């Protein structure tokens, strides 16, 4: 198992954001977390990448306990993330943003850079434009491309479709599939449950800081209660 989250609790001050969440991600899978606003999806990702401290519980990566490992070291171990709100460096060019993903690496980057530009030809056209001046979809491409530049074993994607036009959403989802088929495990957080479930090997449904359901993506697509709550009810 690549990533194992065991009964984690996370607090913001006195408020419990995660109340005993457990989940597993196997190598090569696409796993989704779906749920309403405030269910704890983003917090779960941030806790896995080390941006939020645990109150209790454990996170194992490749069998190793990383619960106390600082976030910047988890990147080196192989956990990449495209964060909520994209987190593009506005004062850096597209290329500088992508190179930030390789901040800890000392090997040759040309091949990886070419690969990212291959996935996102739009970024190749605009490599010397400042990140802050790009559109939402382009910024999302930067965020995903930058996460890939860290050479992750698992990439955590936080709402990659948020605020994008339908055509762009379809494009982003097909790129996620492509990334996965090239060998990177994906843990995806989405409000766009329909699309996410179609793509996923497995998915977890979160409600107010707890996992209320977990099953293969296709099963959840046909699950009446999930359809009712997250897929518009029909």
């Amino acid at each position, binding site marked *: 198992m690549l990533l194992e989250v065991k009964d984690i609790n996370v607090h913001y001050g006195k408020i419990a954001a995660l109340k005993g969440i457990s989940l597993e991600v196997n190598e090569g899978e696409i796993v989704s977390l779906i749920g309403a606003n405030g269910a704890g999806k983003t917090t779960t990702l941030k806790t896995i*990448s*080390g*941006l939020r401290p645990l109150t209790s519980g454990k996170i194992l990566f490749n069998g190793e306990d990383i619960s106390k490992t*600082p*976030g*910047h*070291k988890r*990147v*080196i171990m192989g956990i*990449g*993330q495209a*964060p909520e709100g994209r*987190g*593009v*460096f*506005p*004062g*850096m060019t597209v290329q*500088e943003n992508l*190179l*930030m*993903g390789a*901040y*800890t690496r000392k090997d040759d980057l040309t091949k990886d850079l070419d690969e990212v530009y291959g996935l996102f030809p739009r970024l190749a056209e605009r490599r010397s434009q400042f990140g*802050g001046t790009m559109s939402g979809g382009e910024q999302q491409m930067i965020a995903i491309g*930058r*996460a890939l530049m*860290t050479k992750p074993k698992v990439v955590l994607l936080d709402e990659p479709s948020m605020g994008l036009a339908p055509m762009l959403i379809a494009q982003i989802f097909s790129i996620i599939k492509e990334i996965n088929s090239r060998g990177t495990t994906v843990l995806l957080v989405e409000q766009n449950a329909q699309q996410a479930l179609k793509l996923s090997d497995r998915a977890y449904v979160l409600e107010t800081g707890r996992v209320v359901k977990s099953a293969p993506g296709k099963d959840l697509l046909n699950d009446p209660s999930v359809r009712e709550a997250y897929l518009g009810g029909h």
Partner: protein
Amino acid sequence: MLQDFLNQILPSTVGGLVIGSIYALVALGYTMVYGVLRLINFAHSEIFMIGTFASLVLLTAIAPAAPATFGIAMIGTLLLCMVVSAIASGGAAVLLETVAYRPLRKRGATKLAALISAIGASIFLQELFALEIIPWLTDKPGRNQASAPRFVPRDELFHIGNAAVRLDHVIVIIAAVLVMIALDQTVSKTRIGRGIRATAQDPEAAVLMGVSIDNIVRVTFLLGGAMAGVAGALYLMEIENTVFNVGFVLGIKAFTAAVLGGIGNLRGALLGGIVLGLIENWGAIFLGSQWKDVIAFTVLVIVLMFRPTGILGESLQRARA
């Protein structure tokens, strides 16, 4: 009145550029720390003070009776002063961060708590130097002004109109510009510089790139402190005396310069320092030099009314430098 102004404008400009260069060097430390931590490091003025004393101790030790002449020895002494002061101030800044700011940050204290800690550290350092360290360094009461031996001659190199430009003026301006170019290149071209910019623009995203915020903060204090140290060395060479609270007004002026130029922006600090130095010297022609501080802060208020983000109006988040 107009005749006075015409007579004095050029000499005042030279004086303004000299003191403005020193403001600019000190302003860099405020602006860098603000860019990375959103913290006004009020104790930065004491980091500058430590730089002046590091050079004072060095000069007293190596040049007690040497005549001030231009030559290899003078240049060597100058460089040594700058290096020693940069090390002393840079080291003190790192220590300050470790003791006064880091523990608060780790416990998630508010920015306001960090600001109070900064003011406390400023007063603590002033009094520590006045009560213990300066008497120990100079064998004189800690609140007295301490004078430094002259090692750079006041030779007039050339005239611009009726303004005499002396060797010491040229040294301050050239040294400040060279050091600032080095810093600018470090921040824009090196790996650690990219880490600093990334942290200033989005600290969480920086962590996700593998940037250690703790390291970046330490380096930022080190670089900003070293700049203040170089400023301290140049100040001592130019003014030839220092005192435990030398940093107080100068520090506030340098902070003003940083805000004037656009806080968080390295080139803004340079611009703000020079503009502030010039304006207070020009204003003094009309009102007398006792009005310098009033002029400086009046200008700050006026500029901020019309351009709240400072002259360059952008911060380290957006600026390339």
